[in-house]
């Protein structure tokens, strides 16, 4: 599966110092975010609402109309995308190299188009019709079976409103997988689903990505879900990248103070009531900027320097990273 022209250590996606501003008004919402995703890696992005996680990923992949990448460097498969006309350039990768799964399965399928048509359209858009209508149909049905849709041949001719949320999200995955992308971006794919369905869909996704050699960026507000599902997690807060932490280090002092505090908020299986500690105050919205740490006002460890010093950037795109101005959580 390795690409012959690439050195094996070259990451699939490299984002350096990405800065994102709104088109109207020009306010900078996300600043100085750097990270890299390796081939076949499952990479998590966590943040509370307003942290900028969805804005960051949707803009990076050309799906946000009202914001744009104003600075930074994005490299995919060794090719750097131009900052000028970035949206068009990255959309050129969608539909074959990069797949995307939106959050709400109840609105992410076209209600007036048959399921099968929506999958074969994806195959057609990715590859043209090299195999003809009949074989495309068979491929689509095979994929539907693979993501766990019962009686796929029957479902092929049905409309989305006949499927539950979990089944719809599987269909969306089938659409993404049908284009054989190298990177799959899933934005809160299970937030609208019940616990049992959520676990099944996430496991199906992880299993497919393993089998297809697919890299995944999984965006979620649920740190515990990510801790159990992915290798590394990028933690966003107030539009800043505060931490890139191996899942195993979540909940320890090896993580950034925000990551540590966020994990302390979550009731997990193992915790007792006394283990739950809230973070005082309200979350800061995206657009905090880069002078000072966005979390400083709520951080238990904060010192005066945290409020004013420029935030460290992940300049070397290291595999782990902590933006803590006091050096906490740094490996």
């Amino acid at each position: 599966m390795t690409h012959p022209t690439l050195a094996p250590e070259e990451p699939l996606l490299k984002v350096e110092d990405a800065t994102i501003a709104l088109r109207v008004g020009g306010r900078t919402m996300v600043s100085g975010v750097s990270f890299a995703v390796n081939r076949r890696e499952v990479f998590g992005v966590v943040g509370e609402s307003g942290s900028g996680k969805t804005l960051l990923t949707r803009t990076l992949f050309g799906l946000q109309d009202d914001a744009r990448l104003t600075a930074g460097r994005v490299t995919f498969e060794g090719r750097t995308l131009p900052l000028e006309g970035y949206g068009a350039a990255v959309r050129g990768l969608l539909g074959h190299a990069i797949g995307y799964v939106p959050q709400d399965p109840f609105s992410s399928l076209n209600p007036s188009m048959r399921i099968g048509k929506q999958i074969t359209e994806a195959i057609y858009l990715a590859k043209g019709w090299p195999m003809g209508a009949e074989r495309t149909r068979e491929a689509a049905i095979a994929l539907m079976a693979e993501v766990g849709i019962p009686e796929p041949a029957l479902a092929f001719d049905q409309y989305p409103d006949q499927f539950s949320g979990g089944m719809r999200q599987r269909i969306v995955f089938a659409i993404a997988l049908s284009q054989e992308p190298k990177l799959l971006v899933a934005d809160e794919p299970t937030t609208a689903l019940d616990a049992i369905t959520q676990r099944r869909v996430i496991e199906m996704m992880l299993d497919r990505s393993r089998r297809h050699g697919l890299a995944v960026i999984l965006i979620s507000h649920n740190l515990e879900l990510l801790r159990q599902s992915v290798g590394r997690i990028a933690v966003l807060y107030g539009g800043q990248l505060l931490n890139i932490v191996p899942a195993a280090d979540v909940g320890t002092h090896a993580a950034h103070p925000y990551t540590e505090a966020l994990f302390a908020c979550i009731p997990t299986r193992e915790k007792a009531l006394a283990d739950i500690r809230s973070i005082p105050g309200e979350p800061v919205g995206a657009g905090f900027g880069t002078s000072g740490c966005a979390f400083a006002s709520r951080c238990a460890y904060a010192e005066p320097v945290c409020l004013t010093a420029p935030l460290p950037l992940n300049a070397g795109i290291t595999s782990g990273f902590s933006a803590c101005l006091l050096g906490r959580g740094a490996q």
Partner: protein
Amino acid sequence: MAGAEPLVALEGVAKSFARRLLVQNRSFALSGIDITINRGEVVGILGESGSGKSTVANIITRLTGYDSGRYLFKGRDVATLTRKESFAFKSDVQIVFQDPYGSLNPRATVQSSVMESLLLHKRELGKAERIARAGQLLEEVGLNAAWGDRYPHEFSGGQRQRVAIARALAVEPELLVCDEPLSSLDVSIQAQILELFVRMIRERNLTIVFISHDVNVVRLLCDRVYVMNQGRIVEQGQARDVLSRPQNEYTARLLEAVY
């Protein structure tokens, strides 16, 4: 002791929803459920969407009726309550909803929202006393009393949920029904509100029905739990037992799935 009889007893309560054209009903039918809630208990009702758990909340608070069965409150069948007693019932039982954005009147200041409870159920208080009492309540739930003249849209989700709790507590209810009170809040705010509930349980003489889909929250907060699936109670018992050694197949599946 007078507390020998349960505060709430649902006996074989069933409810079905007429399927009407174009009407989406998110709460599902109930088939013959039994629930008892004793004074001072925190009882969890655990289930996924469509399990009927919100219908239970609405029946206990009498926001909706039921087709068959009996609902005894302090031993009285609520069907026999007079108009006046029904009104008094509302100061005994209060509810906090999931969505803090929809549960406050957008056109009323938070102070007047809290004062409305007092106006209706504490008729003996004068206006100055109501204002003072509302301020105390806002402080008690962790808000600044000086913010009383602000409107709901000026507050965050967590703060609105605190206002909703203050409004419910203002009538000094014996029973507080909480319908997914944490679900639409941010993670760090969920923990804050959870701590607020823990404090209130300790400080006030409250009985709580806590309706949730979150296994872990129920395990931490509740004494007893009823697990619901498709309008039935599939398992019940001490929260710690049920949620660590489930007997029912569905409960087991649910526990396994939870992250």
